[in-house]
């Protein structure tokens, strides 16, 4: 689905943060993206999400050359990718329900057409009781699950999660991991960026390890 060939990225005139990255995210795959802090995990996720352009190399997203994707096409491709940001990026003036429904709302869908889906998804992630609460009163874990639900509502083909267990206790982390595995079982490719070794040890999955700007893949 997403393919990198000798991708390199530098910010401005600085050194290359990512060097000669070649990887492939196949359909229905499950992988961890790991590496020490500052290794470029978020940058790599942003390249996957097309919020950054590589300074060299070739990226193909859903069969399209990244460098040829126009700005007008981007929203449609992004709808096929779900992203859970490290800092959640929830809108504080909207309830949990409204935050999760946002991707559908921006597509111009009527509320009546998605109400059941959003409610069920919120129940599924354990937020059935917190549906009409504003993000500032949610706990870290609840925010995390809201962000995950928002990324899933459109049933993306691929889910990118940046440190999804960074703000939660180990028990909730395990629960969230189960959620991701369940999602993957249902057909979504999953990329989880984390430096939590304990989390990775719980699943026998592909690992992409970033170090010094280079990527090592352990299948």
């Amino acid at each position, binding site marked *: 689905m997403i393919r990198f060939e000798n991708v390199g990225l530098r*910010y*401005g005139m600085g050194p290359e*943060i990512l060097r000669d990255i070649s990887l492939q995210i196949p359909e229905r795959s499950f992988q961890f993206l790991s590496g020490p*802090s500052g290794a*470029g*995990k*978020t*940058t790599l996720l*942003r390249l996957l*999400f097309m*919020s*950054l*352009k590589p300074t060299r190399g070739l990226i193909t997203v859903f069969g399209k050359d990244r460098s040829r994707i126009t*700005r*007008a096409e*981007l*929203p*449609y491709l*992004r*709808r096929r990718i779900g*992203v859970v*940001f*490290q800092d959640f*990026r*929830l*809108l504080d*003036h*909207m*309830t949990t329900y*409204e935050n999760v429904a*946002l*991707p559908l709302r*921006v*597509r*111009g869908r009527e*509320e009546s057409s998605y109400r059941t*889906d959003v*409610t*069920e*998804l919120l*129940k*599924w*992630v*354990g*937020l*059935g*009781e917190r*549906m*009409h609460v504003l993000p500032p009163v949610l706990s870290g874990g609840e925010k995390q699950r809201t962000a995950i639900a*928002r990324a*899933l509502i*459109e*049933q993306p083909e691929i889910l990118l999660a*940046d440190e999804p267990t960074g703000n939660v206790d180990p028990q909730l982390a395990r*629960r969230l991991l*189960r*959620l991701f595995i*369940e*999602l993957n079982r*249902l057909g979504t490719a999953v990329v989880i960026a984390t430096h939590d070794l304990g989390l990775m040890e719980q699943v026998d999955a592909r690992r992409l390890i970033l170090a010094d700007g280079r990527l090592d893949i352990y299948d």
Partner: protein
Amino acid sequence: MTELFTEPLEDEAAGNAEPQPRMQRRTAPIVPEQNIAGRALVSVIAIMTFLSCLAFGAVTLVRDTASVWENQISREATIQIKPADGLDMDKALGEAAQLASRMPGVTGTRIIDREATARLLEPWLGTGLNIDELPVPRLVIVTIDQANPPNFDALRTALASKIPGAALDDHRTWVDRLVAMARTTVTIGVAVLALMLVATVLTVVFATRGAMAGNGHIIEVLHFVGAEARFIARQFRRHFLVTGMKGAAAGGAAAVMVFVVFSWWASRNLATPQADQAAALFGNFAIGSAGYLGVILMVGLIGVLTAATSHVTVVAYLSDLDVRQTDGG
């Protein structure tokens, strides 16, 4: 979608509970209602609109007054006949009136009779004056067709040859001075109005951008959940159009209120010395329909300007977002 939800998180007791009935809450707008920056924007827009409308009102007032001065004075000319030995004043007045009324461009003549002349001199000479005892010059008022004024030089020559002691005053010196003064005043007023409008535009633009600065995260989230640029721009445009209109309407309404209060004051104090003074200077102290129309236009313009600024800011932010190179993690 239902397939996805068949197996909820098993140890999430709370999650399986029935959701509380949904509160009757209107769906939150994509752009939040008002924050401090938004309220400040409304105030700034209201104040600037108020000042611009006042400036506009003042310019229309001066312009109308200036044209009234010009018209009233140039509508008339005066023939003055000085008494001289052996001059039959009444005959001379009749002749002058006749001569003038024959000129093309003259619509009428009126001889100021004895009583009227006495009244004119009353402030200086008191009442009970016998005008015949004094060598007082007499006047003939010549009414002029403004669209087609007579040849004053020809009239002056004709008068001089026929009636000794007759002089024509076409008020040209006065008119020229007043016209020059009025034009200067209007030019200054228009310049002030132009400056005021530029200041308003800049203030509105900067205040809108300030209010937009706090919305960067919203644009970003919308962008990342797959909203099209035109959807995001439309949301902000609509929000800021309403915000701008609210402020502009408040400012415009305040300005109209000031106009109305002044008109009311002027009409209430009609025939009092203060009002006479104001009327002498400004004519009828009332803002015409052009003034009110200007206020409406101003309100619309400022609303559109606010919306356009937010649109441009959103578009710039979005194009920046796709090329922005922030620090990686």
